[in-house]
């Protein structure tokens, strides 16, 4: 039984009948239109399944599955949006989904890496961030800084830190933040948060979807 997290940039698949197998990751652009899964989540998920689970529910279920704490804040940073879930004493305390002003943020970080031929594993965390409210508006800060003599690497790093700080505030400025999404693999982004960050990787929604599938009797 195949389930899928259909993100804006990447799709992640898991076969629940083969639990030892690692999830597959495929660029969204390469996923065939006739793909069908038993259950789906993610931005594009409704197109590929008759059983769709809302991304916030998948995130919450994934967090409950992967985090063994009563109190936690889990933030998912995607290509086009950010969303968080906050639990206190095992009860939902707060949640948020910014699909407008957070638009294109993960996508923009990846785009900048390719455009400027950078390696985020090698960029140091800058002392201060740009004040950016979203990816598109933050781009002009990069160009202005480069024109004024700041190195491209430094300007992009400030931009990335600015996005991390925004995401941190959006999630309620917790002392410890569990992080979900592809940006967990970006050390500059992870280290730019002004708090302790515990990266959980890019399969948290997929884990939550698997929990939902079990809960709804799709898979025993």
């Amino acid at each position, binding site marked *: 039984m195949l389930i899928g997290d259909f993100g804006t940039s990447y799709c992640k698949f898991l076969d629940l009948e083969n639990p030892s197998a690692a999830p597959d990751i495929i660029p969204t652009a390469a996923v065939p239109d006739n793909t069908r899964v038993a259950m789906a989540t993610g931005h594009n998920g409704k197109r590929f399944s008759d059983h769709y689970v809302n991304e916030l529910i998948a995130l919450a279920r994934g967090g409950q599955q992967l985090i063994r704490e009563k109190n936690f804040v889990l933030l998912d940073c995607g290509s086009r949006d950010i969303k968080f879930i906050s639990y206190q004493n095992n009860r939902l305390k707060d949640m948020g989904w910014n*699909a407008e002003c957070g638009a294109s943020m993960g996508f923009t970080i990846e785009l900048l890496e390719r455009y400027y031929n950078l390696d985020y594993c090698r960029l140091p965390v800058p002392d201060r961030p740009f004040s950016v409210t979203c990816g598109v508006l933050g781009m002009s800060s990069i160009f202005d800084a480069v024109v004024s003599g700041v190195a491209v690497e430094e300007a992009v790093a400030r931009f990335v830190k600015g996005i991390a700080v925004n995401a941190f505030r959006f999630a309620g400025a917790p002392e410890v933040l569990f992080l979900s999404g592809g940006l967990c693999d970006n050390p500059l982004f992870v280290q730019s948060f002004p708090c302790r960050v515990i990266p959980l990787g890019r399969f948290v929604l997929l884990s939550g979807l698997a929990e939902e599938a079990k809960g709804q009797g799709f898979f025993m």
Partner: protein
Amino acid sequence: MQTTSIIISRRTENWQALSSKFNKVGIVGLPPLAVIRFLNDRQIEIHDLDALLVTEDMDNASAYLPKVYCAILRTVVLNAISLRLDAIFIDVGPGKCDSAFHVAEILADTLPIPVIRTENLDNQGFGYPICLSNMALTQKFLDIVEGVKSADPRPAILPTCEPTAGYWGVPPRDFSILSLFPDSTHIYGWTRCMENKTPGAGDLEYHYNPDVPTVFFAQSFCAKTALARHLARLHPQALYLDVDVTAGSSAKAKIQAFLSLTEKRSC
């Protein structure tokens, strides 16, 4: 004791004398009961201009109001310029908002009809059985909104249900979000004040039930966003939500996820 003051705008001192020519009037917010009764007694047709009454493009209101403005008041202006009304009664007191005060002036300057500003200080509660009832939330709102056109209390007695969710706030411009809630949702905030016919009753508006997961809703760019956010912070299980003209997929997904993740079983 019932206290009602009616503010007469500068061009409509003699609106009661003019009322013999009124066949169809618009209301904004909840004008005082005395005004509604006056209109009911004369069988004057009432249109609630806060509601979606016309299909004209919302941008038609942009000549009179900024695009970044409360969608309810933009709808009021759109209705007012599209419908052929004989007069408009617009509440601008503590039961509505400061923005309505300015919109009243704009309408008075724009339309060739009397625009009567009222200040509703009614404090005789009619009760709020619809807010506490067990039926589709959309129907509850339709009934409450329809009720503002009548000075009479609702005749039917509705059984109260145990709440499993709460909706706090004003009636949304986009009713589509209401279908996401269970029938056992209780209504709080200004909508409860509407049904009670006491739109300026602050204590009733501030009330919420901390034992019920509640969505605190406000229209974007409305002053009530501050109150909605504040009360959501105080509530142990709350979702603050503001929506502009129409609710996008992320707003609906937030409601759906919140209700699912805080689900309480009905008794």
